[in-house]
């Protein structure tokens, strides 16, 4: 129990640090967005001081102390008020994010979990049939595929399956004539659009887990307790699962949590390539259009997402590995 409390406390502290950094870093940058807009206006002719004031007022450039700004900032976070998007004016930032979030959550969630499961199972099989043809094929194959950049695979898939063969749509999350709703027709259409982006992630995602799992399990199969399990006359299934795989999966779970940050970076590329309406594409647009409120909120959301996923992975590890619970207590 203490382990779980400790992990939660750790989560709260990192969350606070992330929120604070998100507040501090933009204020350390030189210049401000108002100046940028004013600069653009000066290009078209002389600028009225009233215009400058109007821009500043519109953007809400603060004139209070840093501490009270920080306090206000925390307050608006709690209320869920992230301001108004510049590019999608007058929609609030939260509206844009809540539109995009489900797309990414489903695409990345499903593909990463699936990739992890496929990789772990293949790796376990490779270790169990060590040095067999299956093992060499899977190990070499995953080393090869794992070294390919996946945006390149995405482009290749796009070209071959969407452009040349025309089997799949080349962009978007759903067809233009289908409106998002809770219907089978929409779900089918969304899945159809999601296949290519999902596939391009799924090609490379399992590679790392295969190699990790195989190596861990080769080791756990060589341990005395596994030899003892065989000597005990346990069934092959029990030896492989409860003794070999059960111990070998633990480092992979930790690895999964650590990999999540990097995964989100990759999502930006995939969503941009397929013009997929998720958080990644939104972030890309926000950066391109210097949509500061949107960017800031997205960064914060991503950080919180990674932290939450890490917390879950820690909890899972706590359930799976009795030694971890003990160490932290």
């Amino acid at each position, binding site marked *: 129990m203490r382990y779980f409390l400790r992990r939660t406390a750790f989560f709260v502290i990192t969350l606070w640090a992330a929120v604070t950094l998100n507040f501090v870093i933009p204020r350390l940058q030189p210049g401000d967005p108002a100046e940028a807009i004013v600069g653009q206006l000066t290009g078209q002719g002389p600028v009225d001081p009233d215009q400058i004031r109007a821009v500043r007022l519109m953007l809400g450039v603060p004139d209070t102390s840093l501490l009270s700004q920080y306090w206000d900032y925390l307050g608006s976070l709690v209320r869920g008020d992230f301001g108004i998007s510049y590019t999608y004016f007058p929609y609030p930032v939260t509206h844009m994010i809540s539109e995009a979030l489900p797309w990414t959550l489903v695409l990345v969630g499903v593909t990463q979990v699936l990739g992890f499961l496929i990789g772990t199972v293949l790796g376990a099989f490779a270790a169990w049939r060590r*040095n067999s043809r299956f093992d060499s094929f899977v190990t070499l194959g995953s080393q090869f595929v794992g070294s390919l950049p996946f945006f390149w695979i995405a482009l290749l898939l796009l070209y071959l399956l969407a452009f040349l063969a025309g089997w799949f749509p080349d962009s978007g999350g759903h067809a233009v004539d289908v409106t998002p709703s809770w219907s089978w027709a929409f779900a089918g259409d969304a899945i159809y659009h999601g296949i290519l982006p999902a596939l391009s992630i799924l090609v490379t995602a399992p590679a790392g887990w295969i190699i990790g799992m195989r190596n861990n399990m080769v080791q756990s199969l*060589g*341990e*005395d*307790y596994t*030899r*003892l*399990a*065989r*000597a*005990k*006359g*346990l*069934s*092959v299934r*029990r030896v492989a699962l*409860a*003794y070999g795989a*059960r*111990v070998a999966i*633990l480092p992979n779970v930790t690895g999964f949590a650590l990999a999540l940050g990097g995964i989100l970076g990759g999502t930006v590329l995939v969503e941009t390539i397929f013009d997929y309406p998720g958080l990644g594409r939104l972030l890309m647009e926000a950066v391109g259009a210097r949509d500061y409120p949107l960017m800031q909120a997205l960064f914060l959301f991503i950080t919180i997402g990674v932290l939450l996923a890490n917390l879950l992975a820690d909890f899972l590890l706590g359930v*799976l*590995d*009795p*030694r971890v619970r*003990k160490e932290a207590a």
Partner: protein
Amino acid sequence: MSLLEVADLSVAYATKNSPPTHAVRNVSFSMAEGECVGLLGESGCGKSTLGTALLRLLDRPARITGGTIRFDGTDITALDENALRPLRWRALSTVFQSSMNSLNPVLTVEAQFRDMFRTHTDMTSGEIRRRTAELLEMVLIDPSYMRFHPHELSGGMKQRVALALALALRPKLVVLDEPTTGLDVVVQKSIMDSVRTLQREQGFAVLLISHDLGTVMEIADRVMVMYAGSVVESRPAGEMLHPYSRGLLGSYADPRAETVDVTYIPGRPPDLSRFQDGCLFVDRCPVALPKCATEKPPLAPVGDGLVACHVAPSTKADFADSTFVRSVRAVAEAPPVLEVTGVHKTYTRRRTSVTAVDDVSFALRRGRVTALVGQSGSGKSTIAKLLTGIERPDTGTVMFGDVPVHRLRGRAMRRYRKDVQLVFQDPFAALNPVRTVRQTLVRPLRNHLGLSEKDARARLESLVDTVGLAPAFLDRYPHQLSGGQRQRVVVARALAPEPSILIADEPISMLDVSIRAEIVELLDRLVHHRDLAMLYITHDLLSARLLADEVLVLNKGTVVEDGPTIEVIRNAQAPYTKLLLDALPNPPR
């Protein structure tokens, strides 16, 4: 009919890149029901491979290349896994070496009993729990430990659990492979006592594989000795006839005696990837005849047992040329080089603190050896760290002449390190595997004596000569050396900066018994010829007796007894010293 019959069994390790190693060579023996057979031999002799082959647990690249194993009337040599399963554990079980790893770290103790009962019996959950509790009580563990995970148990408890597990289905044969290696002597003794009592009560047969002569001689009805993959002798525990067995026995002695002598066997075991004519022991044998080199001696009956030797029936071999003799000698008083006064060291980690060293005082003098004797966790290694300045005492002082070691830093510490050097326990881990002996030895000469590369190299030959190695060894890598040769290199490295103090932390415990006396002799010679002060750290009173002039017995960080070695050993007062003495093997000679 005997329970186990092994005929002409051979096992080889075959890898793609190197010639196959023939680890077990044409071994034949049998075991009767309820018999306790000890299988003795040094590391690499094939004893564990033989045990694993009997359990049919060999993994690639090892495989049985010839011969048969008959267990309880069934030929199990080539039986497939499905046919073996009913036999496994019900009839044939095992306890592995206590390397902390024979229990699954993520399952509770109960679960590890449960899966075995589920596989072999129709017992209900309640019955399984009751039986598990019974079994744990049998090995003196409280049944409440059932719910624990292995990491919550001590090493000794884990080994008891493994023993209870092995006996759960009342097997006919239990293979014990080094069951107590790595455990403290006192724990070792209590576990072996349990094995013996249970064996008498339940009548299972035991094959006890061990390099620990004392334990085997004490417990086994019959002793088999293996050398280079072959059984060279098999007879009831007692006087042994084969020169190799005699050499092994010679490495033990009674530390209470006025004069203690221990022997070592010169040379090293043969290359197991080749077959050679004649006796495999011939190169190391002190009594070899010309025909030993050409004609392989068969395992033939002599006296009340079997022995494979041309000489043994007529001559009893001794190793007079390779004996280290230690008698009681008078030691001249010398002024201390290092004085330790009232040191204390407590380690604190997350609110729990452990007192590692509690008020210890002693002095090291030139030309004398002081031994620190104690079990793991007694604070021996912490004291070594305080002496070398790696750790600082919480209170108390360590004075090197007028230099306060407990306060040194930076350059002064570096200067001091030239004067105090370490000999490590594990010669396999103490040398950088990618450096030749020459590269390893040049470092300390350059760093501590400030010699130029050229001057340093000029000194190397005399340096390796002092530890009894030929100059040709300078260009070898560690993996090309035997354990004893490596340990000589480690000693040479320690001597290189011409220190006045040598700290030897269990320098012989990782070496094979047959060569331990060799290293003891070397250390003894160095202390006297170079007038060194030595701190000898060990868990073993016999080696302390051989090397040390005075001894401090440590228990839980405090000195429970100290004085001249022979006095402490003969008139042990502290109960803890007596325990350590009881645990010493004293095989018949």
